[in-house]
């Protein structure tokens, strides 16, 4: 269970997150929607401890991310996929995938490599395991990014606008993989601009605006005329996103 309680984050004079409450139970796929600058990515970065909280608390399976010792445990339970891939450029695809399992989980190297190769093969990169990121396309890089997160066998997958840097064709490739993971019951927190995709795979949708969590509804209700769409701000946001 990921539990965020009255989370506050301030950058200088700007309040990026303002008393945000969010609970993610195992098995759920929660989409976080909202316009740019609404605090979606910051919320993900608070969950994996890349940003320090200015108020409130976040726990991952009861491990408090604001305490360094517990953060290490929390991080073992969540895997992050980044918008700009953030791969290690001096390592091959396989090395990118196996670094954390070997160093953090202390898995035997041969075992981690076998699993890494299997993961890469499962996303269609079986023959690219020894390529460096600079030799891969954007879509391939993001698939490596997903494998890197999955290699940690995380209980929670945190996805931060993972398709924003990809063209539509590559986006489809990556979304297919995520859909498959969702079907297998992987718990996901999913920041995205892909509204239709969010609608098909999420069990819940939350909407952030100016750092406040405005709506937290089951997917069906969120997209229903008398549910989330009753909120004029959400209706406006959705119609705008669909036009693009």
């Amino acid at each position, binding site marked *: 269970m990921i539990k965020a309680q009255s989370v506050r984050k301030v950058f200088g004079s700007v309040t990026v997150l303002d008393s945000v409450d969010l609970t993610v139970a195992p098995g759920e796929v929660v989409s976080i929607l909202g316009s740019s600058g609404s605090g979606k990515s910051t919320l993900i970065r608070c969950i994996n401890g890349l940003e320090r909280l200015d108020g409130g608390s976040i726990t991952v399976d009861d491990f408090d991310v604001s305490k360094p010792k517990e953060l290490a445990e929390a*991080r073992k339970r969540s895997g992050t996929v980044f918008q700009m891939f953030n791969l290690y450029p*001096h390592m091959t695809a396989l090395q990118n995938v196996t*670094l954390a399992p070997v160093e*953090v989980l202390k898995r035997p190297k041969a075992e981690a490599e076998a699993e890494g190769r299997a993961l890469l093969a499962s996303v269609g990169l079986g023959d690219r395991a020894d390529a460096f990121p600079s030799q891969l396309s954007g879509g391939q890089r993001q698939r490596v990014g997903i494998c*890197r997160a999955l290699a940690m066998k995380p209980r929670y997958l945190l996805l931060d606008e993972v398709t924003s840097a990809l063209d539509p064709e590559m986006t489809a490739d990556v979304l297919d993989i995520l859909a498959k993971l969702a079907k297998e019951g992987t718990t996901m927190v999913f920041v995205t601009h892909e509204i239709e995709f969010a609608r098909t795979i999420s069990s819940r949708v939350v909407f952030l605006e100016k750092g406040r969590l405005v709506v937290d509804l089951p997917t069906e209700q969120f997209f229903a005329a008398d549910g989330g769409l009753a909120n004029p701000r959400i209706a406006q946001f959705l119609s705008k996103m669909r036009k693009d």
Partner: protein
Amino acid sequence: MRYTEFTPFDIVLLAQGLGVSVGLFLATTVIGLLIGTLWAVVRFYRVPVLMQVITFVAELLKNSPVLVQLFLVFFGFPAFFHINLGPVEAAVITLSGNTAAFVYVIAVSSIESIGRDQIEAARAFGLTKWQVLRHIIAPQAMAFAIGPLTGLLVNQLQVTSLISVIGVMDLTKIGNILNLRTLKPFIVWAVVGVLYYLAAKIIAYAGATLERRLRAHTAWKGL
């Protein structure tokens, strides 16, 4: 009566001088690299006080002439700390410190050149600061640093010629002796110059080879 002709023994003298210069260069390079890198690691961990002290010392060493530092060590250590130093020891201390200060600057900028995004990714996966330094930052920073480091070391080799003034029998000192005896400065200094040049070329070549190897991942190998 002075003997002004060159003798075969002069070659041995030159070889000895070159040996002393290269030996001192290698020793001070190793010490300087170790100390400079260690300082950069202290800065990476943001150790309070120690970090400020290091920055201050490095600034002093970078911004004053090596010859002045050499005199301060050679004459200052016996006078103020009552430690008697031979010329070689004084030379090792001074040149190591000087190299360390410049290595520190290169190491710090190399560490800072590594993209924050990869470091954040590694941290988010639970790697400790040390693991990030070892697996993510160090290999890439090394590839980045090797160019400036090669430039620095080629320069530091030439700087070793300064130690001849406190009586170390290095290549320059030998040149001086041969020059005074033979009174053929253009021959003597041309030979000495060529020897420095060749030694510098070897350093540059080694640096370039190492750089190519460390940058293998950025080389385009085709799909």
